């Protein structure tokens, strides 16, 4: 598109790269651990893999693909998401166009009508998706919001016949219990970034609060969907730290977002991650979290451009189809064609425990 503003890319590697011989050895050692010994890598082993040279990224991706097939199979899980309540959020997540703290072109809208939510779920199911996530831009749900969500979840399941996920911010023990009772299949609450970087991204709540909500979700036997957002300025060490912290909350699913800098937000002029660098980190997250559902999420179109199919042979085994919360995705037909061309069947996944 000729009239798209120039998006800057980050280009300089922050740590020295391994030689190709060292990279080969590190990849072979990781293959032995993950495929022969069937054990997770230590964080130190993972850290050693992060510095393979760009020329070895396809080899790293090939191992991640083999690990995904061995630990999760070839099925790809397709999900649709809906921003059921947009904008006006009191939190200040520096990447987000829905915060009321920044001047953003995104207009706040109240909770959508039940008919709109049902229609969105139908539309999602018609694309072959098995999961539909209702997302709300809030710190956490108040009583009225709880009632609306708790009314919608069983209704969508009954009327549409799709697994329903919810993303409604920080929740209490009582709220987690209610969500579990009404049949929330998966609850989304992202850690977004490493604990050591979090205060550069959000100041209105703590990383510990997010961690606690993640634990409550698991304690109430809902599947935890706990995503990351890469490219906010975190270091390689912090990405490895994040993988360790994700292991601690045991998510069924990890959506991988790449920063798509939003106008008006504090991160509006951050550079995009380079496409090959994004593939390196998709592979790293698969190698670090071999059994999770690793989902393509926001920012993949602008970050990866023509390399999107490569992510699915680098460890990704799920995707968000169609549009995102406030931005658009590429056409669902393109994604479905990509999966068909890769000969990857679509279906529901659960974490292999």
């Amino acid at each position, binding site marked *: 598109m000729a009239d798209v503003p120039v998006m800057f890319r980050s280009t300089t590697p922050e740590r020295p790269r391994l030689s190709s011989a060292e990279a080969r050895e590190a990849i072979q050692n990781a293959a032995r651990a993950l495929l022969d010994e069937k054990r997770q890598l230590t964080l130190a082993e993972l850290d050693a893999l992060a510095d393979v040279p760009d020329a070895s990224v396809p080899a790293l991706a090939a191992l991640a693909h083999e690990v995904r097939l061995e630990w999760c199979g070839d099925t790809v899980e397709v999900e649709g998401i809906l921003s059921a309540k947009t904008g006006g959020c009191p939190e200040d997540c520096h990447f987000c166009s829905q915060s009321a703290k920044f001047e953003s072109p995104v207009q706040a809208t109240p909770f959508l009508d039940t008919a709109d939510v049902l229609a969105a779920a139908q539309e999602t199911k018609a694309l072959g998706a098995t999961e539909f996530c209702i997302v709300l831009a809030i710190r956490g749900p108040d009583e009225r919001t709880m009632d609306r969500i708790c009314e919608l979840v069983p209704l969508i399941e009954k009327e549409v016949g799709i697994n329903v996920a919810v993303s409604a911010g920080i929740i209490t023990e009582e709220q987690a219990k209610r969500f579990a009772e009404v049949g929330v299949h998966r609850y989304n609450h992202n850690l977004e970034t490493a604990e050591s970087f979090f205060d550069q991204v959000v100041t209105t709540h703590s990383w510990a609060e997010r961690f606690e909500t993640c634990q409550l979700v698991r304690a109430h036997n809902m599947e935890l969907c706990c995503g990351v957002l890469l490219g906010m300025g975190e270091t390689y060490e912090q990405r490895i730290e994040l993988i360790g912290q994700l292991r601690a909350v045991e998510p069924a699913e990890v959506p991988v977002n790449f920063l798509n800098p939003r106008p008006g937000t504090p991160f509006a002029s951050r550079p995009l991650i380079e496409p090959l660098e994004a593939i390196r980190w998709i592979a790293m997250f698969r190698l670090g979290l071999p059994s999770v559902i690793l989902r393509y999420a926001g920012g993949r179109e602008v970050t990866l451009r023509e390399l999107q199919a490569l992510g699915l042979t680098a460890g990704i085994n799920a995707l968000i189809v169609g549009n995102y919360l406030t931005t*658009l995705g590429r056409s669902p037909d393109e994604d479905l064609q990509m999966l068909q061309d890769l000969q990857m069947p679509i279906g529901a996944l659960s974490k292999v425990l």
Partner: protein
Amino acid sequence: MEATYCHWCGTALAEHSDRQCRRELDPPRFCPQCGRRLRVKVHTAGFEAECKNHGLQFTADQSID
């Protein structure tokens, strides 16, 4: 009705005609008639952008420059 404001960034078109503000994969955000921010309902396979004063302005089905 003729557009007065840029539907991508809300700037008056008299001051701004080259649409350098357009971002890939963003829906229109401003009413071309009054420049007010649109309420944009984004869902899996489409979107609708509505102005509080001027009603529905854009949907995913139309081609938007």
